[in-house]
């Protein structure tokens, strides 16, 4: 399959590949040293003698080998409360992390990556004082064909990379074992009584698992650099992200800056141990940077009647969490001592089935991948077909907006032998088996199909005006009926003038019509003036098919008191 990915040069942060190559032979030898033995809650007890670590080649004369295991603590899910159980702590390896030896001047004198067991080994000078530290950053190793660079950083501290730091200690004249453990900082009841050191490494570990899921189906994948920004000051309020006002755990695209933000507000909502949330948000990064996302984001839930673009993106994120974590249950904890939370199944949430439901999308995608054969599910294909469809040029370059319709059509074309199974899943979720545009769909989420169906109206240059309404009946911002979608085919290069005018509704107040024009998902024209009751814009267009969306601004403005039903006429000349 030819892959078209918008790639960029990935700079490595403060690391030389040569340093990694120097230690490659040691890493290859790293194989033992599991640290998966459960560790008791605080207070700490002296660890048992370290398990056998890597067995590197004998160091050069005047050198010693410092080796050991790097691990972090993770509370387990409390299945009764859906919260976290801090009285049951797992100790897990910190995998694929940058591991450094630092001298007394703060200079990195040796560097490697921890292996899958969290083990490391470094040759360093004998009789020198140095410390070992592990960064909350994973990059591909010298033997990896894939390329990635992911760091967990503190958005309230200059996006500094967290590091788990050992002591300055003499290396002596014989090989030495140094083990580092990142603790939760919580007591057995979940009260934070110390530094929350494990947090960034828990986030790192979940995303490392996600990366491994991707490299398993595409060993040569190039994953663009990404940061996951976490702080104990990250709160559920929108504002200045550098002081922690991040809104919620989310993937944010702002110009060229694209990053995942993770809540850290203990006692209210903190997500470092919510693996489902971490992978879900990483999934948005994956979709945005490797595939194509037309999602506009925003609040959503399993019961929401969502814009088809959001339904796809959020359903994919949910399904990916289950695929990566090999767990059909999505979990998100919150509240005092993270003692409450909620869960939902990735298999059978069907409150409002249809093309507008993130639950329907997650059910379909998870069932394509999982080995469980439940109702209507005859597929057990793993992540591969989903990955291949999401990256296929037909999908990435689709003329309309991407949705479950476009993804299903790409599946069918790529794997015709799976078509019957995929169509059965679609029918189970009350989604029409049709083309990539959703032509002929009859499942309307509202009493009247007007505004919801057909999925697109055709707009013709010089043709009749299209009349439509923008409504708030099903919610605001990212819900079905807020927007009307159009397809516009341009036969020959020309400048097209668009005029959108109010025809009814909002009798006692001004309307604010807006429209956007896209080509293959890329916005070309943003007509969003504040003009009352009309919006006019023009653009020179090459031949091809364009997608448009048009709406009343108040209906996509969260909390706007002027929301309501208003109808417009759109013409192209």
């Amino acid at each position, binding site marked *: 399959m030819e892959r078209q990915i918008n790639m960029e040069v990935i700079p490595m942060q*403060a690391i030389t590949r040569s340093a990694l190559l120097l230690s490659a032979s040691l890493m290859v030898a790293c194989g033992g040293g599991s640290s998966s033995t459960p560790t008791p809650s605080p207070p700490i007890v*002296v660890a048992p003698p370290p398990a056998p670590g890597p067995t590197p080649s004998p160091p050069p004369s005047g050198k010693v080998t410092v080796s050991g295991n790097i691990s972090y603590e993770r509370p387990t899910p409390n299945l009764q409360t*859906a919260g976290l159980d801090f009285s049951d702590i797992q100790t897990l390896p910190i995998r694929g992390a940058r591991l450094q030896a630092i001298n007394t001047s703060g200079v990195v004198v040796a560097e490697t990556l921890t292996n899958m067991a969290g083990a490391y080994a470094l040759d360093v000078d004998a009789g020198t004082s140095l410390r070992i*530290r592990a960064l909350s950053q994973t990059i591909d190793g010298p033997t990896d064909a894939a390329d990635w660079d992911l760091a967990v950083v*503190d958005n*309230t*501290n200059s996006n*500094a*990379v*967290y*590091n*788990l730091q*050992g002591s300055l*200690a003499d290396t002596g004249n014989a090989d030495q*074992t*140094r083990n*580092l*453990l990142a603790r939760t900082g919580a007591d057995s009841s979940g009260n934070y009584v*110390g*530094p*929350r*050191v494990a947090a960034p490494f828990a986030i790192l570990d979940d995303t490392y698992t996600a990366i491994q899921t991707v490299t398993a189906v595409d060993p040569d994948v190039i994953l663009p650099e990404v940061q996951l920004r976490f702080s104990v*000051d990250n*709160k*559920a*309020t929108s504002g200045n992200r550098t*002081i*922690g006002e991040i*809104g*919620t*755990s*989310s993937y*944010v*695209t*702002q*110009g060229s800056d694209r990053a995942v933000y993770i*809540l850290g*507000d203990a006692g*209210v*909502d903190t997500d470092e141990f919510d693996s489902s*949330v971490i992978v879900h948000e990483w999934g948005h990064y994956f979709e945005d940077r490797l595939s194509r996302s037309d*999602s506009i*984001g925003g609040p*959503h*839930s399993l*019961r929401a009647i969502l814009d088809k673009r959001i339904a796809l993106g959020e359903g994919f994120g949910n399904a990916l969490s289950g695929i990566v974590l090999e767990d059909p249950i999505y979990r*998100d904890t919150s509240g005092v001592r993270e003692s409450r*939370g909620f869960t939902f199944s990735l298999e059978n949430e069907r409150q409002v089935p249809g093309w507008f439901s993130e639950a329907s999308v997650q059910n379909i995608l998870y069932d394509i991948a999982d080995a469980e054969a439940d109702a209507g599910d005859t597929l057990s294909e793993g992540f591969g077909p989903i990955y291949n469809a999401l990256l296929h040029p037909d999908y990435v370059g689709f003329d309309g907006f991407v949705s479950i319709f476009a993804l299903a059509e790409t599946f069918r074309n790529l794997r015709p032998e799976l078509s019957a199974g995929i169509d059965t899943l679609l029918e189970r979720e009350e989604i029409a088996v049709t083309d990539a545009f959703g032509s002929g769909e009859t499942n309307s989420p509202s009493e009247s199909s007007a505004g919801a169906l057909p999925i697109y109206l055709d707009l013709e240059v010089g043709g009749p005006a299209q009349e439509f309404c923008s409504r708030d009946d099903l919610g605001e*911002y990212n819900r079905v009926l807020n927007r009307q979608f159009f397809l516009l085919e341009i036969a020959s290069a020309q400048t097209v003038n668009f005029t959108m005018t109010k025809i009814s509704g909002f009798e006692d107040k001004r309307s*604010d019509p807006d429209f956007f024009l896209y080509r293959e998902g890329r*916005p*070309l024209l943003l007509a*969003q*003036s*504040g003009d009352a009751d009309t919006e*006019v814009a*023009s653009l*020179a267009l090459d031949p091809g098919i364009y997608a448009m969306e048009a709406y009343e601004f108040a209906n996509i403005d*969260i909390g706007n008191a002027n*929301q309501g039903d208003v109808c417009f006429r759109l013409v192209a000349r």
Partner: protein
Amino acid sequence: MNAIRYTICLLAIAALAACAQANSSTPKMTEPKPTAIYNKPGIPLTLSHGKRLDVAPGDVATLTLTVTPMVDGVAIFDLASDTGLVLRGAANRRMDISGGVLQTLDVDVSSAISGRHYLNVVASIEGISGTRALSIPVQVGKGGVIGKSAPGTLSIDADGGATIAMPATETIDGVVVIDPSQDIQQPR
């Protein structure tokens, strides 16, 4: 256009720049805004708040929580603050959200402590699993965010890179040499 939240502005700037013939009747939005914010899943209810209030120490601020429900039922709001913000009234409020109509909830708070406080709201809906959190900021006098204990110390490496050094529990040849739990910070 004020306070537009749905924007695909910056992504499109390059595209727009390439479309020199594009024009419309009035200037387009130029303020840089996020292209999109992909939130984590939550309950079928949207929470928002108005502009941040600035009050003097000791003065009462009335914070307005705006609730946009998507299902019928009863919403429950747990209100709290951990920075010395005093809540006037019940810390647990209920609201009938049937009908899907946008509603507001006013909450009076005050504090004698200067700095940026937050009223933490955890919303749930009876009979529906899950919560949605919102922190409403209020600036009392002067001063920055009243933050939590940082997990480590910011330092600049010899190569100029910034890192947050966090204490490991470390054993060297089986002997514990660092044990942060023996020197823990007490929560504020």
